[in-house]
């Protein structure tokens, strides 16, 4: 078969034309504005009376490193409590049993409806209501001994978090097609088995991004625990600058530590999302930073396409 060459509009053969990509003038102006702003900020910080060697010195102070450690542990414990409570109450809220869903609703209403600061103070002072705690006949102890500041903060932050996570998990469960539950039931699973094996793993894809957000939020909220005497990084920094008056220096040190911790958490979230994206999308999984680097600099042509 013979095909006619397409008539050319300008007289140039199509093979000789050069394609020029769209110009992005806005990007260049935007980038320039950002650079200017950053320079101005850097100049302001360097002209201010900030003693940078002090910042460097305090970055390695053990008390502050312990402080960020406490914040991280408190985050882990509170989020663990929050996640378990969140999943349990989300499943409870979707129950057909009105008592079960009512209890879950009440929990969310109370713990989402009051400031977390107030809740922390209440847990810390719980001994005023229950001076003694224990299992009758087996064990009993004084509340003040058991509910140390760290325990009170863990429970307080965890219960508050659970109320928020519950709604996130509920949204995730609702996002899974109802046919999935029916298919699971059709092969003989109970509702709970279906929830655990079929619905929740699919809901995870929707749940993880907001929960990752909340982990990061929690890391910063732990600073509130200083109100009930937990020695986390910010309260330790304050103790130091009350004495040496290096206020901005110590706050910058804290900011650096928080940013570092959040960066590490974000990396964890990226890989967790990748894991749960398995099979659930026809799109390719997002590249890991290593794969991205090798696709930019590497000679592997396949990765670029």
């Amino acid at each position, binding site marked *: 078969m013979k095909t006619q060459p397409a008539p050319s509009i300008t007289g140039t053969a199509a093979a000789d034309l050069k394609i020029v990509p769209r110009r992005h003038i806005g990007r260049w102006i935007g980038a320039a504005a950002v650079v200017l702003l950053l320079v101005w900020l850097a100049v302001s910080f360097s002209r201010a009376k900030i003693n940078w060697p002090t910042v460097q010195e305090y970055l390695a102070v053990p008390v502050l490193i312990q402080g960020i450690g406490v914040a991280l542990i408190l985050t882990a414990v509170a989020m663990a409590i929050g996640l378990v409570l969140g999943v349990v109450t989300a499943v409870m809220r979707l129950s057909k049993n009105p008592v079960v869903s009512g209890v879950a609703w009440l929990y969310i209403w109370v713990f989402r409806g009051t400031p977390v600061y107030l809740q922390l103070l209440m847990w810390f002072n719980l001994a005023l209501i229950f001076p003694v705690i224990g299992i009758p006949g087996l064990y009993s102890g004084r509340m003040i001994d058991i509910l140390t500041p760290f325990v009170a903060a863990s429970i307080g932050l965890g219960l508050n978090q659970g109320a928020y996570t519950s709604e996130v998990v509920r949204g995730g469960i609702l996002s899974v097609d109802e046919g999935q539950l029916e*298919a699971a039931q*059709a092969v*003989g699973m109970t*509702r709970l088995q279906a929830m655990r094996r079929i619905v929740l793993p699919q809901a995870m894809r929707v749940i993880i991004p907001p929960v990752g957000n909340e982990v990061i939020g929690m890391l910063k909220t732990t600073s509130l625990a200083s109100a009930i005497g937990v020695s986390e990084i910010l309260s330790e920094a304050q103790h130091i600058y009350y004495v040496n008056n290096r206020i901005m220096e110590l706050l910058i040190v804290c900011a650096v530590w928080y940013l570092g911790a959040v960066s590490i958490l974000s990396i964890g979230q990226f890989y967790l999302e990748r894991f749960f994206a*398995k099979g659930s999308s026809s799109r390719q999984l997002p590249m890991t930073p290593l794969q991205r680097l090798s696709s930019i600099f590497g000679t592997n042509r396949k990765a670029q396409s």
Partner: protein
Amino acid sequence: MTTNVLVRAENVHKSFGLNEVLKGINLEVNSGEVVCLLGASGSGKSTFLRCINHLETLSNGRIWVGDKVVGYRQDGNRLFELSDKEAARQRRSIGMVFQRFNLFPHMTVLENIIEGPVLVNKVKPAEAKRHASELLARVGLEGREGSYPRQLSGGQQQRVAIARALAMKPELILFDEPTSALDPELVGEVLDVMKDLAKSGLTMIVVTHEIGFAKEVADRVAFMHGGEIVEIGPPAEVLGNPQHERTKAFLSRVF
């Protein structure tokens, strides 16, 4: 009661609020029989099918599968709904294939098939995998164990769904419009697998719009209209020489 009857529906009623969807269905299906349920959409076919494995509760009446009442425990003249666990136990011997496949997207084909046997029937994973490979060969998908559902065509997904139902070694399989969500050129491959199952002596209740399939494979065809079975009999009679006005009207529109 003859022992040969596997499914016996007695005066099955079902209402959603004020809307009465099933108005007294009576149907007996013998062991090894293939029964096709035909009818316009909204005639209650799918709802009735879903009652047979208790995905829907009943408003009145009762359904036997084997020697058990589905979803309920009879005590005197009352039927008490079974717990979730007991209902799940009953569903082990009743397979179901859905219109929209409903494969588990986060699991591979193999994991989809062995999930029920391993989790529910406590079959050893190695044994379940071996059986799954046999079933995949039977539905013409050998070697696709590692694929995810998204990577398969609709017809392939539905055949995996059939293999998943077979993996539980059910005595009865319910098909809810198994080819309605498929592209026309993929319908044949699924129907071929179903014909094969019918020949092997599996008891099947099939809600379908495939008149050709019903004619060729079904032992009996039931035509439903307005929540009732208005005509039932061998396909040659019901499809070849319909007696009821509604059946005639339906068939004239389909052909």
